[in-house]
């Protein structure tokens, strides 16, 4: 029984053992929370990509037609007010286009296999910055963790394995084995992890309250009832595009013969 050994420890050693245990629990919790945050981010990014590809580009197209209509009207009216409205409409169309065709729209669907989830967990568990023994080690871990996160988002198992290898081959991975365990260091780690846990909670809350997350949950809830909201939205926006296109054509047909 380990308790018998504990009885023989000095008060300082007992304190250290307690703190070590506390740290181990916190580390396990941290990895759990990091993983759920990473999953949430990746799911949101994937959904956002899908939304932008399916619906966002249609909004961009609609805005383009509306800008065309406004520009046409501005030319016909020739007033400052009409010109201002047209340039505002054009700016809106440009922004929608950039958003719908930007990086975010290229996110792939995120459905990691159980093996990939497990691999990512192992990697993060071993290289997390809050387990660093020194500042040099911490900097390396920080960089590799960032890379691991991106690799997980891409669902790239090979890259994850390489990252772990890179860490294991680095001199920093050999822990400075100071024979007397440093209570100070453990306390610092505990403080860092607690801070990071708080940061994660803040970010998860922010993410869950984001517009894209609200949209995602709406789509998921209605999907359970057999409805495809994204498809419905596509159809609706397409209908508005058709109307705008017709309006533009009518407008230009009316104005051309002077």
């Amino acid at each position, binding site marked *: 029984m380990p308790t018998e050994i504990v009885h023989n420890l000095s008060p300082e050693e007992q304190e250290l053992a307690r703190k070590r245990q506390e740290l181990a629990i916190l580390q396990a919790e941290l990895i759990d929370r*990091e993983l759920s*945050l*990473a999953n949430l*981010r990746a799911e*949101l*990014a994937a959904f*956002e990509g899908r*939304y*932008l590809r399916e*619906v*966002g580009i249609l*909004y961009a197209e609609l805005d383009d037609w509306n800008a065309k209509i406004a520009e046409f009207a501005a030319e016909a009216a020739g007033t400052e007010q009409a010109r201002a409205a047209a340039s505002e409409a054009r700016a809106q169309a440009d*922004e*929608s286009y*950039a*958003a*719908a065709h*930007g990086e*975010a*729209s290229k996110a792939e669907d995120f459905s990691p296999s159980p093996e990939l989830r497990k691999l990512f967990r192992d990697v*993060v568990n071993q290289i997390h*910055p809050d387990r660093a023994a020194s500042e040099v080690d*911490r*900097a390396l871990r*920080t*960089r590799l*963790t*960032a*890379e*691991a*996160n*991106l690799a997980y988002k891409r669902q790239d198992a090979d890259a994850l394995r390489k990252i772990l290898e890179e860490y294991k081959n680095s001199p920093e991975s050999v822990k400075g084995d100071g024979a007397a365990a440093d209570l100070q260091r453990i306390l610092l780690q505990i403080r860092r992890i607690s801070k*990071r846990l708080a*940061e994660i909670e803040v*970010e998860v809350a*922010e*993410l869950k309250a*984001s*517009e*894209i*997350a*609200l*949209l995602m949950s*709406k789509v998921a809830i209605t999907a359970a*009832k*057999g*409805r495809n*909201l994204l498809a*419905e*939205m596509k*159809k*609706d*926006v397409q*209908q508005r595009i058709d109307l705008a296109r017709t309006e533009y054509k009518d407008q230009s047909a009316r104005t051309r013969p002077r």
Partner: protein
Amino acid sequence: MSAGQEKPGGLVQVQSTALAKGGANSLAVRGLNHLRDKELAEEWLRKGLELQTTMPAGVRPELQTTLEYIKQISTGTKPDVAAENLRMTPEDQERARVAHHFMPDTLNECAQLEEARNNQLLEVFLCFERGIQLDPHHPLLQHNIGTAYYFGRGVKQDYSQAYIWFRKAAEQGNANAQYCLGTLYSDGEGVDRDEVEAAAWLHKAAEQGNTDAQVGLGLAYKTGSGVPQDYAQGAMWLRRAGEKEDFGDPTAD
């Protein structure tokens, strides 16, 4: 959060991408607004459907179909299944979809449901008016206009107008209008009270199988209002009403 400035997109230092992009976020907001409008429209249309069921039968069947379609899809029925249920043509379906979609625009103007209800009633009344201009002798339209005036739906309540329109339809043989006209005579609404006239119109409607009129006529015979008191006749009409509807006949035993 200051350590990873040189490296974008990290698990540790960098804030979520989903929150950072203004453009993509505003597109998400538009999508959400779109869905909210849609939900409001569905809600409003559900109310409209409830309203519609209190309307006289036969009013704008295509609107009824549209509302029923939207009700079905908003409660989770697949659009093709709903269309199949209601035996809608592709054109019907398209009209329903468009009505559904553009309802938010109307909705924005209707700050309150009450206003929406009135607008709906007004719209229905205007349809009657347009219809009667096209076909001044249409008995069903005449009857419906009478009903609108009688209840003040979409037009100011006016019993005299109700009497005029019910009379037109009743003279053309519309059973419902005959029953309504009979009621106006017996209650003295829009016309001087006249039991004999009342019973005569109820009789016409009752003979056409109008259940309400059969009940009214049965009671008239029992009490001798407008007709000579006659229990046998009274019982006969009440029984005939009971044959069609599950009307508890108090004179049966």
